[in-house]
């Protein structure tokens, strides 16, 4: 991006003369300049308020309360989003479903990052046969399309975990199953990035210096090399949250995901296509919330990629 107007030129000159910015400030500045990323971040905060703040207005009993007299009733004053096939209020369910969907998205990425970073770091750092073995395994996992693997694993672990009581509420055990299987079927890409980073960083002088001062391998991996490859991990992790939410929606949509009565945006859509003509509110509301969340996360991820890219520092005007 060149300098196009005088105003930009003066602005640039001012910036050059001003105090040097810390990397944190530069990243924040560049993120804020990315308008869509800021929009995405605001949308995400709104969505978080919607699903976690909605608890004040609706109790979980309301979300799971079935009233068969009110099956498939269209949006009205009492039920602004209508009711589902067994008369549950869709508005309340999108609130509680949102919590689970967002929690699944975030936790699955934590699992993914842990597995991906560990495998990538070990393979890249140690090299040799360890690298060969781990990368063969990664490649094998890569070669089975994720959705098929997810469905097989959902079937494999399905129904084996009892419901969990937490925060005075009962969650279906399938929530944990979904988190774990999404995590362990999506780490391959991250592992490859981390490995590539480790391969190049381990040849650098600071690693040699750490070796000569007798630093342990573990400490070199986690304290010296890992902090230097944090940027791609953050970017890829952010975008993975969107993928995890979509994956949850896919498996739940196909009926192998989180089991009712626990609501998620995904399992609210299950079977909705049978009512495409008669009850569009069944899928429009949870579906739009998924799209909005995924879109916002992708915007934020895109902004982060630009903000965290070290090569872009020179370009920042």
């Amino acid at each position: 991006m060149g300098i196009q107007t005088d105003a930009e030129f003066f602005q640039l000159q001012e910036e050059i003369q001003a105090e040097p910015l810390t990397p944190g400030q530069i990243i924040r500045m560049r993120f804020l300049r990315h308008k869509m990323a800021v929009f995405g971040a605001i949308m995400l905060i709104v969505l978080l308020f919607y699903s976690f703040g909605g608890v004040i207005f609706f109790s979980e009993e309301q979300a799971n309360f079935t009233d068969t007299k009110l099956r498939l009733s269209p949006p009205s004053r009492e039920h602004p989003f209508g009711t589902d096939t067994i008369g549950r209020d869709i508005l309340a369910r999108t609130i509680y479903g949102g919590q689970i969907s967002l929690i699944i998205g975030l936790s699955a990425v934590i699992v993914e990052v842990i597995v991906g970073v560990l495998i990538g770091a070990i393979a890249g750092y140690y090299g040799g046969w360890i690298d060969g073995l781990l990368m063969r395994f990664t490649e094998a996992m890569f070669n089975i399309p994720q959705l098929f693997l997810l469905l097989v694993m959902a079937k494999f672990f399905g129904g084996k975990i009892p419901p969990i009581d937490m925060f005075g509420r009962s969650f279906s055990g399938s929530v944990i199953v979904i988190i774990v299987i999404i995590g362990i079927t999506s780490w391959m890409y991250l592992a490859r990035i981390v490995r590539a980073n480790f391969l190049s960083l381990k040849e650098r002088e600071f690693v040699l210096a750490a070796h000569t001062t007798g630093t342990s391998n573990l400490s070199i991996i986690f304290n010296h090399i890992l902090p230097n490859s944090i940027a791609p991990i953050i970017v890829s992790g952010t975008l993975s949250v969107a993928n995890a939410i979509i994956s949850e929606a896919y498996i739940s949509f196909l009926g192998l995901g989180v089991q009712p009565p626990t609501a998620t945006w995904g399992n609210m859509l299950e079977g909705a296509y049978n009512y495409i003509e008669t009850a569009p509110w069944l899928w429009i509301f949870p579906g739009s919330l998924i799209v909005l969340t995924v879109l916002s996360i992708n915007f934020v991820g895109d902004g982060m990629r630009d903000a965290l890219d070290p090569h872009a520092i020179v370009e920042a005007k």
Partner: protein
Amino acid sequence: MSRYIIRRILQAIPLLFIISILLFVLMMNTGDPLATMGGRKPTRPEDRARLERQLGLDKPIYMQYIFWLIGNDWSKIDMDGDGIAETPGTRKGVLRGDFGDSLVSRGKAVVDIIMDRLPNTLILMIPAEIIVIIASLLVGIYSALRQYTAIDHIVTGLSFIGYSMPIFFVALLSMYIFGVNFKQWGLPYLPTVGMFDPKVGKTVGQVILHMILPIFSMTVITAAGYSRFVRSQMLEVISEDYIRTARSKGLPKRMIISRHALKNAALPLVTIVGLDIPMLLAGAVVTESIFAWPGMGRLFIDHLSRSDTPVIMGILMMISVVVVFSQLVTDIIYAWLDPRIRYT
């Protein structure tokens, strides 16, 4: 080059073994295939024991894997449970092209079941992929050549949204608009489910009519992602020196775009398309479920829910082979298209 191909094929073999072991272990623990065998009645214990022996389910898992892999016609099965193996096995094993028989549809070979459904999936996927490639090239190049104009902003915005959409949402939305709303408004509307109208029968016209919505949903999402990619590739290429040279030689713009820029910009698309073929197959699972399309994706879901291991393993292994080989073919095509790349 041929040495490279041979080496890649040799590398693919252990890979496929790892995949098959992984999947086999997962599949053998996913549920009880015998539970649904007695029809509505629960299977009687003595029948169950006999079936287990007959299907080899009483054997340890590594033996089951070996039987699956190389067949059991070299050993004998103890059919009546008296401890003496007397009946010779009949399975030939995957390595000899026998994927066994389905547990759910008794007596039907897995290969036949898959081959029944495969054409249905392919007639959805192949046109979809062709439309995706053409559309994304057109849109990507068009918006790259008009960078930062209003149209470019609209196209990039829309493709970002399309790329973030889960396929079921596009599918449901398009069904609602083109199937339901059009009907209400009295416009010609599109059918939403199935492959043909049973009242009319399976005619070419009917199938094409029923293909429109599923193909539309699949293309919207994939084309959105691809066109973003083509756009950024194109932007990179048109800032190269050789494009400037071509311009300063006074070549017409059309010529520069089609001869010089397009070739190099479209090249990486080959890789993306090659790597995305499995994604397309996966997308078919959801698409086929929504549109009640009798393809492989539906087959997979139906048989997975009843733990029909031979069919599921057959589908998954077929896809894995497709993935491994599509990667190989992609690399070969890439080297052939781009003389700068040489594999040794």
